[in-house]
């Protein structure tokens, strides 16, 4: 049993709720404690939750195509608010239209996300990566 706590939510004005529930189940099944903020979550809400719960990771989902705008600046805000070790993941339909995933990955890594996932990600594998990344940070 790991004692990882991860904050989960769909960022911005995005109300796609289904993927969020699936992620919650998948991570919980892998022994990760999930603090699920649901849909339409602001950057500050992610951070507030992570501060109070002592979460080691924040998992941001963006499904509706505005990820590029909504997700930018989260890393800086985390640093500003004292979350200097937090692991940041992002996934979903991050940009509008069909862009090459490698390009999308570079874009979001540039924003400070530790890992970037396409919709086709295997959630069990993702959970394992998360455990490794958290262990490496602490």
């Amino acid at each position, binding site marked *: 049993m790991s004692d990882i*706590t991860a904050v989960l939510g769909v960022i911005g004005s995005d*109300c796609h709720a289904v993927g969020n529930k699936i992620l919650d189940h998948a991570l919980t099944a892998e022994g990760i404690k999930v603090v699920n903020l649901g849909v339409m979550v602001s950057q500050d809400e992610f951070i507030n939750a992570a501060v109070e*719960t002592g979460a080691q990771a924040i998992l941001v989902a963006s499904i509706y195509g505005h990820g590029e705008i909504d997700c930018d600046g989260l890393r800086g805000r985390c640093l500003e608010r004292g979350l200097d070790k937090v692991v940041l993941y992002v996934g979903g339909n991050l940009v509008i239209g069909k862009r090459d995933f490698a390009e999308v990955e570079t874009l979001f890594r540039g924003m400070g996300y530790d890992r970037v996932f396409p919709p086709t990600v295997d959630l069990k594998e993702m959970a394992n990566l998360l455990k490794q990344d958290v262990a490496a940070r602490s």
Partner: protein
Amino acid sequence: MIVACLDIGSTWTKGATFRVDGETVSLLARAARPTTVVNLADGFFAVLGDIVEGDPLAQLHDGRLSLQYSSSAKGGLAVAAIGLVPEMTLEIGKIAAQSAGARLSQVFAYHLTEDDIAGLEASPPDILLFAGGTDGGNTNYVRANAEAIGRSSIDCEIVYAGNRSVAAEVGRLLAGKRLRIVDNLMPVFNEPNPDPARDAIRTIFLETIVKGKGLDRIMAATGAAPVPTPFAVLEYTRAIHAHVPEWDSFVLFDMGGATTDVYSVHQEMPDLGTVLRGLPEPEVKRTVEGDLGMRVSARTTVEAGEPEFGDAAEALRCYAERVVAQPEFLPLTPEDAALDTRLAAVCVGQACRRHVGRLATIYTPDGEMKIQTGRDLRQVARVIGSGGWLARAADFDPAPWFAQHAVDARGRLVLFPQHFSYYRDADYLFPLLANLARAFPAAAAQAGIRLLQD
């Protein structure tokens, strides 16, 4: 049954005797005298003598009379709250303190600074409510704050209601201080649990604060224990909600010289398509504004109302300077009365503005969405004004101020009551009936509503 009810306020000690026959309450006598700050018991027993025929203590002892009383004298019950994130554990700490009838003297989020500690050392509250972190959550801030408090010379009661993973450690770091450890006020994220902290504050009030304020003399002579006035009024609000048909939701303003209290009972039922953000709201809520009041706080009230005063700003500033040191001042000229009314509108309006929530409309590719934070009192149909000024003000109506401030600077809807009847506690009996309600909740609730004026 005859019940003597007294309320020791910061300027007046008020009292009334009520006869209770089943569900009917009749007022037998009432009196008020200036509060005797040096020794609260003097004013208390003088008023008790005024409202009871014969020897009150003898009647108390043989059971012919019973007694309930509250106090907000000598600064009331001052609580400083320490939380982690302002919108989370600090917010719940504020709710716990305010619902225990306390006045928030200081609030702190994140790390306590050297200045914060110095401030607490220089003017310690009655109680320090110390929280932060969910159970199993953040420990760094809590530990650092506990260390800072432990090293300091802060001398007051401390209630720890934070992350239980570090509770034992906090106990060690604060060894030698008067510390009580209770359940976390947010054990699980977004699930507020203010009651254990609230209960601890009440117990400490009874066990120690009462003595410090000189209320122990009254307790010793009468055998009855006091509560903080706002605590009694909050519970009275709950009693009205429970026992009076059609009063399951309402707002009560208690405006005084120093503070404006807002109490509301309301069940949140968000519309479909509205997303709720932030902490879930309690059904019964009290907020108190220490900078909004008609006399002692007149200066800060003018500051809070400044932007809307226009040409009248200077006149209001001068007026505030005149009344600030005179708690008993009553306006005699029409000009002064008009200025007084403007101050009152700001007190009630701003206090309500801080009490209610906001609704933001955001435009998504999918069309409009609504995001609500805090409580939505738009459907609340009944509003009561109490406190000396509001009791007397037959023509006062808060509705125009609410309507003028229905949208905030960020374009969000301010969730004020929209269409409501305004009632007045014309005899200013609510604090006394709130005391009666401690023994007879249903009868006192019905009597209070019956006595209101439209």
